[in-house]
């Protein structure tokens, strides 16, 4: 009983323990300012993971997120001079659309999301390569600051990226916990057939979940390209696996219906702390991968709540 109750809290306990371990090596790490900035720096990855959470929450996965973000960096850089701040709307709409296509392929053509999103990601990548002319592009600093300067910098020590992340988190949390759509996504994740037999338009909401995932991926790409002041069809390489890891370590299992966006916040922080710990623990260059793999195994072993997983596949 008590253990069962405790399990819910394992993810953040793991996070705190990790932070304390690193803090023991170097107390400086524990400075609130440092931790806040660490959280701010993980923002693009976290935002992508937020979207990924929705896809995983319904029992699917979105492997197109990184390619969509790649494409977005290119499109954002191209459209910035044309539309200014409204280029954000354009790229977010495009991300939403790509996600919706993944959803359509999954629900209508019955191609598992693992494959469907991988394939749609290929299309996004092609669009990005084509639009960029296979070159790295950069934004005009003035234009960027006028349109999106508010995304960067910090106020009273709080990075704006962190604020943006938390706003998006609140938005996603509200959808998940307070809106009809979120309830339906949960039902789809936990028992799709019963959801269908309750007369829910399940397919629409699955498409919505993937579309939102695409949208968040686009926002992540946008933020990243603003941060880097440019775009290229490979700029967001290396986002995908950490984003998935963040979701899973946070305690949203691939089986769906359990966990959620708050968990992903914790998961993303765990990823950030583990990465930073390489520096603080002085892990040699050739051992960093092993270290990451092993810490990952330990973290997942600690964080996942197996009580709702009847079988572990």
């Amino acid at each position, binding site marked *: 009983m008590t253990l069962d109750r405790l399990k819910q809290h394992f993810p953040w306990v793991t996070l705190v323990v990790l932070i304390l371990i690193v803090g023991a090596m170097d107390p400086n790490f524990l400075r609130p300012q440092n931790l806040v900035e660490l959280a701010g720096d993980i923002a693009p990855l976290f935002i992508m993971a937020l979207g990924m959470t929705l896809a995983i929450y*319904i*029992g*699917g996965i979105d*492997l197109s997120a990184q390619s969509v973000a790649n494409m977005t960096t290119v499109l954002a850089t191209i459209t910035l001079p044309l539309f200014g701040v409204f280029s954000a709307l354009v790229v977010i709409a495009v991300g939403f659309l790509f996600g919706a296509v993944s959803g359509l*392929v*999954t*629900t209508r*053509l*019955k*191609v*598992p*999301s*693992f*494959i*469907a999103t*991988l*394939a*749609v*990601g*290929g*299309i996004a*990548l*092609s*669009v990005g*390569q*084509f639009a960029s002319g*296979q070159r790295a592009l950069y934004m005009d600093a003035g234009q960027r600051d006028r349109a999106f300067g508010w995304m960067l910098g910090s106020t009273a020590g709080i990075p704006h990226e962190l604020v943006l992340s938390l706003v998006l988190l609140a938005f996603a949390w509200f959808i998940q916990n307070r809106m009809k759509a979120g309830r339906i996504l949960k039902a789809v994740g936990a028992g*799709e*057939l019963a959801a*269908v037999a309750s007369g829910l338009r*399940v397919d629409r909401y*699955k498409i919505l979940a993937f579309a939102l995932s695409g949208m968040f991926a686009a926002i992540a790409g946008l933020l990243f390209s603003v941060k880097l002041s440019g775009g290229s069809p490979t700029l967001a390489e290396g986002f995908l*696996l950490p984003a*998935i*890891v963040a979701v*899973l370590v946070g305690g949203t*299992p*691939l*089986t*769906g219906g359990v966990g959620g966006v708050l968990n992903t916040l914790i998961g993303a922080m765990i990823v950030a702390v583990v990465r930073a710990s390489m520096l603080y623990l002085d892990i040699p260059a*050739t*051992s*960093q*991968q*092993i*270290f*990451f*793999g*092993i810490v*990952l*195994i330990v973290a*997942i*072993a600690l964080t*996942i709540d*197996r009580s709702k*997983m*009847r*079988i*572990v*596949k």
Partner: protein
Amino acid sequence: MANMLTQDNLQKWAPLLVLVVLVVFFTAVNPNFLSIRNFARIAIASTPALMIAVGVTFVILMGSIDLSMEGSVAVCAVLFATFFAALGGSLAGPGLLAVPATLLVGAVFGAINGLVHVKLRIPSFMASLSMGFVGIGLSLLITGGDRILVEDPLFRSLLTVRLGGFPLMTYVAIVALLAGWFIQNHTTIGRNFYAVGGGEDLAHASGLNVNKVRVICFLIAGVFYALGAMLAVAQIGIAETVTGRNLMFVSITSVVVGGTALWGGSGGVWNTLIGVLIVNVIGNGMVVIGLPSYVQDGVLGLLVITAVYLSTDRRSLSFVK
């Protein structure tokens, strides 16, 4: 005859049909495509990938997934090259022992993968993903990031010597594929993969030691990865940390394109053969017909969706995620 053309049959043969259509299409655009020499080229590119895909097929049949292949292949490749060099560097001598040693390494790595998954009760997706990082890291530790050359002419004859137009490595792959088929259809463990994929809790209640089956499955997959690693080394003569690069998504895509269900219980190694060929024919064909490089990812995506769409029996599926 009418019987042959039922929807069931069409779906069963859809992957093969897709393959044939692709071959016909590419040949129509560039007749050079249809030649033994080009088929040999496709075969060379396909052999390591096929071994990896056969390995992961077993895991997918159980309804699990294995994402450790890139790490596993890296470890096996560099250890093979290391053993091989240490044992004299020739297949004609004690160097031959490097082959079983590497298969053993693959088995051990696979078994650890399975044990982490089963003993720590971590979903295979996560366990194997993490083990993939460990594998890459391990190979990095072993090599320090350097590449190891394998230049023994006898070993390289796997690539350079041809029989009937195809290099020897193709035949090695075919033999391994037959072994995979034998395991799948005629051994207890192979049938148990299907049992676990069809209903793990039911299999357990029937007295099957499901955890043991799982671990053995990952172990067998590891052996196939080791084979794939050695063939990859045979193909370019270099063993390095990135020998397995890109194999993860490609091999799983191949398995699914071939018609093996991602949720387990149906499909098998022949499907995987077709799937690997489809993916490699597309890769080769797109260059051969001169598609601009920037559209290739997108076209591959579209073709993959089409292939999976055609080979899925949607009637028996209540839903797909």
